[in-house]
């Protein structure tokens, strides 16, 4: 019997495509942000609000992954920016290949900021690198503050946690302090920002963070 030690990464095929995306984005100077969260934590509403605030300053576009329907892309398009729906047909996460396939539908040279709104799920999307510069995870106050320890990989691989639906804090048993402590035990470098797309709390800080990262990316291009 022959035996070969291979030590090949199971996601080698995905990571190979993610590297291609990364190089393309670096060439064009487009900032790529992967937005993840559970279903219903306010990703699309945040995309709408971000578009409303930034569309006169920069060119922004969104690709959004869902199991079915064009609903999210329709909502984002209403704000006047380009949005493209990736229907995964039952797959619970986006893979680099799915992103790469639709990339040529965007005129990247003229886009400063491209968001990937991932499928709402804190498990599988954490394993798939999409070639993003930053991974931002939303954690809604209505979800309960115990999520970072339940889904550690997502918080370990994220750069920022947005505590969303902050306007509901007076009405729900959710401790920002507890969620921040748990999340930072998993990832001490995680940036944390409290935000509400409805009351606009934290939205200016969020937009400033994005503009600073866009500038950094352009300077390095």
């Amino acid at each position, binding site marked *: *019997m*022959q*035996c*070969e*030690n*291979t*030590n*090949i*990464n*199971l*996601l*080698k*095929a*995905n990571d190979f495509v993610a590297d291609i995306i990364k190089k393309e984005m670096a060439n064009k100077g487009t900032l790529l942000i992967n937005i993840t969260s559970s279903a219903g934590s306010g990703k699309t509403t945040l995309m709408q609000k971000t578009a409303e605030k930034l569309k006169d300053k920069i060119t922004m576009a969104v690709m959004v992954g869902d199991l079915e329907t064009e609903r999210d892309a329709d909502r984002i398009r209403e704000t006047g920016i380009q949005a493209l729906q990736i229907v995964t047909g*039952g*797959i*619970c*996460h986006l*893979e680099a290949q799915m992103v790469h396939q639709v990339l040529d539908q965007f005129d990247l040279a003229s886009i400063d900021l491209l968001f990937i709104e991932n499928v709402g799920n804190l*498990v*599988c999307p*954490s*394993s798939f690198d999409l070639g993003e510069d930053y991974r931002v995870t939303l954690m809604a106050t209505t979800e309960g503050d115990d999520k*970072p*320890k339940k889904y*550690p*990989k997502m918080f*370990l691989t994220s750069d920022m946690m947005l505590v969303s639906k902050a306007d509901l804090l007076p009405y729900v048993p959710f401790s920002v302090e507890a969620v921040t402590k748990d999340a*930072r*035990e*998993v*990832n*001490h*470098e995680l940036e944390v920002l409290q935000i509400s797309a409805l009351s606009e709390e934290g939205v200016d800080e969020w937009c400033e963070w994005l503009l600073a990262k866009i500038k950094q990316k352009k300077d390095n291009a």
Partner: protein
Amino acid sequence: MHETSIVNSIMRTLEQEFEIEKLNRLKAIHLKVGILSNIEPRLLHNAYSAYHITNPGYHHVEMHIESTSLKIHCEFCDYITDVEKYRFICNQCGKPSKNVIQGEEMLIHKVEFED
């Protein structure tokens, strides 16, 4: 769904790595998956069984899955900590660390072929 994607990815990867002649002699696949990989061995075995329905050529190939625990290496004091309750903090000096040295793997660790 996640496990199905992973089984497809494993088989695609092996088909890229090895010649058909060699794959025909494939006997066993050994995977190493960390506790942080979000792979549940039992579900992966089920997904692999389902894979055989559409790809009967591999039905005799065994899949072995080894799970690995979570360890971090401290950059400050060089100590290796077994991470418990997802506290990524050095047990010796108390400093936080993201330097995961074991527990994130998703590896096709070893493959066996018939002579």
